[in-house]
Structure formats: C-alpha cells, structure tokens
C-alpha cells in the first residue's frame, strides 16, 4: 500500500468512526420520541438558550479576539509570550476546573461585589455566557491570530506607505484579506461554545427552563435514564451543528 493510499484510508477511517457513532443513535431513535422531543417546551428552551448563548459569545469573544489576535500577530511587546501561553490554558485545564475557578472567583470579595451590585452570574444564563466566553476565548484569539498571520505584513506596510494610518490600513486591507480566516474562527468559536458543557454546568447549574443548554439537557436526560430523550437531543445538536457548518462553508467558499 502506498503512502498516499494509506493516508486516504486513515482519512476515511476518521469519518467512519464518527459515522458509526451517529448511526448507532438510530437504535434508540423513533419518530414518536422525536415528536415528543420537539413538542416539549423544555427542549425548545434548551435549543434557544444554546443558540442564543453561543451566538452572543461569538460576538463578545470577537470584540476581544480581533484586536488581541491582531496585536499578537503584528506587534512585539513585553509580555507577548506570557499572553500567548495563557491562551492555551483553557485547552489544557479541564472545563470543569475552569468553571470551578469562575465559581471560586465569585466567592471572593470582588466576585461577591460584582454579583450583588452589577450582575448575578451563578445559576443564570449570564453564567452560561460567561462560562462559555472563558472557555472559548483562548481558542478564539488563537484562531484570529492565525487568520491575521495569513495576511502578509507587507500589505499593512504598503497601505501605510500609500497614506493610510495604522487603523485605516487594518480596516481597509488587513481585515478584508483575513475575512475567510476570521469567518472560520467565528464558526469554530460558535461550535465550541455550542458544545461547551463542563464550565457551563459548573457555573450555571442544571435548572430546567432556565440554565439548560442542549449538552446539559443530554446529560440530564441520561442521568435520569431517559435514553430516547437523550438520543433525540444528541441528534438535534448534531443537526444544528452540521447545518451551521455546512452553510458557513457554503458562504465562505463564495
């Protein structure tokens, strides 16, 4: 077997692993259970919560990740390496630990003050958003940096030599040329936020009709031995995710 064929075979195998897992869902999937799932207000609420939180997180993370990613891509500054290393923290530390750290923060005097005077986070939808934001921010900045890295610094230089200030050069040349990478970054951030479980459940808990996202819903159904409900929720999560990924690929290829 040639190296090329071996590579292709392994690539197909990765697909098969996931395909087999998805196919196994059909064992417990029935029209009745799906109907029950979709007619339940709790499920619809979980979908809404998940999509709303993930979408909002993409925008909030974007506000931070765009300038931070650009600075990391273009500028050399004191502490650059520390920032760069810290971005990988959420990848290494378990999401549950990340969530626990957020909870611990809110039991400090600063955290208590914030909760009492600004916004209640623990066990609320704001907690979901905060937990997902903290979980995805590192990856989001990394992906934005990669998108900016793919645009040669020569473009910024050229724009500036033609009279554009540094922000105008960023806006008119760097940003448009990084748009595909940034779009992909947004989609991946969204997908990661959609699937986030550990930090979310630690901070926001599992309050039905309040802080229940789709992944939490799956966990709760499994915990209460509602296999069919769990399978339905999983199928739903997969469908929503695949749909978004497909459309994003479609848009970015144009």
């Amino acid at each position, binding site marked *: 077997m040639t190296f090329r064929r071996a590579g292709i075979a392994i690539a197909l195998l990765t697909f098969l692993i996931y395909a087999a897992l998805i196919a196994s869902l059909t064992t417990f999937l029935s029209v009745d259970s799906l109907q029950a799932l979709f007619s339940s207000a709790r499920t619809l609420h979980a979908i809404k919560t998940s999509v709303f939180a993930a979408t909002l997180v993409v925008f909030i993370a974007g506000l931070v990740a765009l300038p931070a990613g650009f600075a990391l891509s273009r500028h050399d500054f004191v502490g650059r390496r520390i920032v760069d290393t810290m971005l990988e923290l959420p990848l290494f530390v378990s999401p549950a630990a990340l969530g626990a750290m957020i909870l611990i923060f809110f039991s400090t005097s600063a955290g208590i003050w914030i909760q009492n005077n600004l916004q209640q986070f623990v066990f609320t939808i704001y907690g979901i958003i905060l937990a997902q934001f903290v979980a995805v921010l590192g990856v989001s900045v990394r992906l934005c940096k990669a998108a900016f890295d793919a645009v*040669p610094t*020569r*473009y910024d*230089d*050229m*724009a*500036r*030599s*033609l*009279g*554009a*200030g*540094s922000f*105008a050069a960023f806006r*008119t*040349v760097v940003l*448009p*040329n990084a*748009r595909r990478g940034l779009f992909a970054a947004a989609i991946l951030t969204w997908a990661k936020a959609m699937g986030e479980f550990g930090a979310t459940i630690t901070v926001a808990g599992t309050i039905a009709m309040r802080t229940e996202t789709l992944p939490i819903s799956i966990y709760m159904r499994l915990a209460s031995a509602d296999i069919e409900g769990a399978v339905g929720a999983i199928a739903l999560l997969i469908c929503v995710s695949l749909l978004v990924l497909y459309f994003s690929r479609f848009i970015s290829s144009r």
Partner: protein
Amino acid sequence: MLKIENLNIVAGKFRVKNLSLNLQSGLCHVIVGTTGSGKTLLLETIAGLRRPERGSIIFAGRDISLVEPEQRNISYLPQDLCLFPNMLVRENICYGLRINGFGREEADRRLQPLAVELDIAHLLDRHIDHLSGGERHRTALARAIISDSQLILLDEPFSSLNLGLKRKLWHYLKQLQVDRKWTMLLVTHDLEEAQLLGDDLSLIANGELVDTGPKSEVFCFPKTVSAACILGVENFLPARFEVRSNGFCEFYSPALETKLAVSASYPTLGRDDMAETCYKLGIRASDISICSSDFAGAIRGCVIENIFKKGRTATLVLRCPQKNFSLLVEADLSEIVGRAPGDDVCISIAPGSVMALIQN
C-alpha cells in the same frame, strides 16, 4: 530634496553601513547593485517601513527618519508589487488617493489617462488575481505614480517584464518623470534601465556605497574594481604604473606583457602615490577586438580557448601571453571567420577605453 547621511540599517546579520546619498529635486537617481547588496533595505527605510539604526534621512528640509510612513508623502513600489488582493485594479490604483481624502471623481479623472497610457484601461474592474505578470506590474506602477508624490521609490519595477514591454515602459516613465519633474529613486540591476532612466547613479555592494555621481561620470569612469564589477566590466588585469607622458599614464600589464595607456585625466590618476597604489586595469569585452598582426598597437600572443556564439556576435575566451590570465572578448561573427579554439590571435584595445581601477 532627499539627503541621506551616515545611514545604518540592520536586518539580521546584514547591515547597511554609513550610507550617504544626495537626491536632487526633479531628477531620477538610480541605484545599481548586486542582489543582496541592501538596495531594498534602503528603499524600505526611506519609505518608513524600517527604522534605521543610526543616521538621518532629510526630506524636503526635515528629518523623517522616525516619521510614520503615512506622513512621509513618499510613493513606494516594492519589488513584490504588493497589490491588495481584496480590491479591483481600479481600487488598488486609487487607494492612496482615496485614503488621503480625494473624491471618487477626482481619483477617476487622474486614473483614466494613466490607465490608457499604461494599457490597463480595459482591466480596471478586474480582480488582481486575474491579471498577468505584466498587467500586475503596470497596475502597481500606476498606483505608485498616480498620487504625484514628491518622491517616488521604485524597487526593480520592470524586473519580470519582457524586453519589449520593458522598453516601452522605460520611455513612458522617463517622459513622465521629466514632464512632471518627479524626483525618483530607482533600484535596479539592469544597466540598460539605469542608463536610460537615470540622471544620477549610485553603486552599492555589501551594504556600502561604492560610488555615486552623475550617470555619465559613474558609468564611464568607475574608480574601483567593485564599481566596475557592478557596471559589468568583464576584464581586470593587474598593472604597474610606469610613467606619465603627453596626457597619458602608462601602465605595464604583466598578463599581456605590454604597456597600456590610460588618459591622465582619469579620476583615479594624478595622485602623488601612483607608483605605490595597487591598480587594476579594467577593460570591457566590447572594447577589445580581434585584429591582424600588422595592425598598429596589436597585442600578440593570445590563444583562443573557447568561442560562444550568440546571434551576430560571439564571446571569446582568450588565454593571455602570461598563461594564468584570460580575457573575455566580444566580437562580431565576421571578425572570427575561420578561427577556432587553439588558434593564436592578435587583439587591439579601443583607445581611451582602459580604466585605471583601484583595488579595494
């Protein structure tokens, strides 16, 4: 107009050392140098894309060495063109105008004649990815010259174009430069381009200025071996100063076992320590011709080592009478009819063509 004083630029292990240049307003100054000599570094520093380590760049009366690039009013055409892929040809060319607050109509008014002249008028609404190499070059050139900047920096702007198009653009650019009294700094390694476009000429090698001055002076009277090398002189013969007589200085060339005369007005001559100075005589291959043995001034004893024919001319490699030396000679095919490697030939050197170069 632009005065560079003791400029030092560091890029990794390479450095441009103590470079000083003076560009006169309304003229085209050409910098010729071998690859890796620091030409591009110099242009990037003038454009503001690099900080010099030391030295000053005085432009229109003020030191701009630390001024941001967008505040310099200097146009720059880099070697890699650096066209913006997210924009149409039209948007690329007008970028500088639009970002500096010119309206669409004014930008268009300037664009139209330029696009026609550069033969890109039909491409204005295309994307950069859909242009050929020559079209991209012309687009980038248009972008560099449309703003009528006080100073235009061009880094090998025609290097990848075919000769016909290159010549056409040379003439066009020269005409524009003269008409609009642009001050241009052009970097190239094409000597024909340098001769045609340049008013003043500087030579650089290994990050150091080798020579600078009016084009005719630098071209015709190189002072050092490295300057002559950059200018494409092919033959260098060690020589000893012998005597000065009748407006000529005589040198003895051991390689040719003969005396050669150089005009006493040659810039490197006329100094007191000529007898102690280490000279090399530079002779262009095109200034040497094959002649018959009875020709007055014929140098005998050369043997043809090899002949490389190219079109109507040929390059001959000759072994000198002093066997360790060889000469390159450019001859018409008609001059070498019946000659073959191994033949003895006599050569003559065009009067006034020998250069007295200082070995550096």
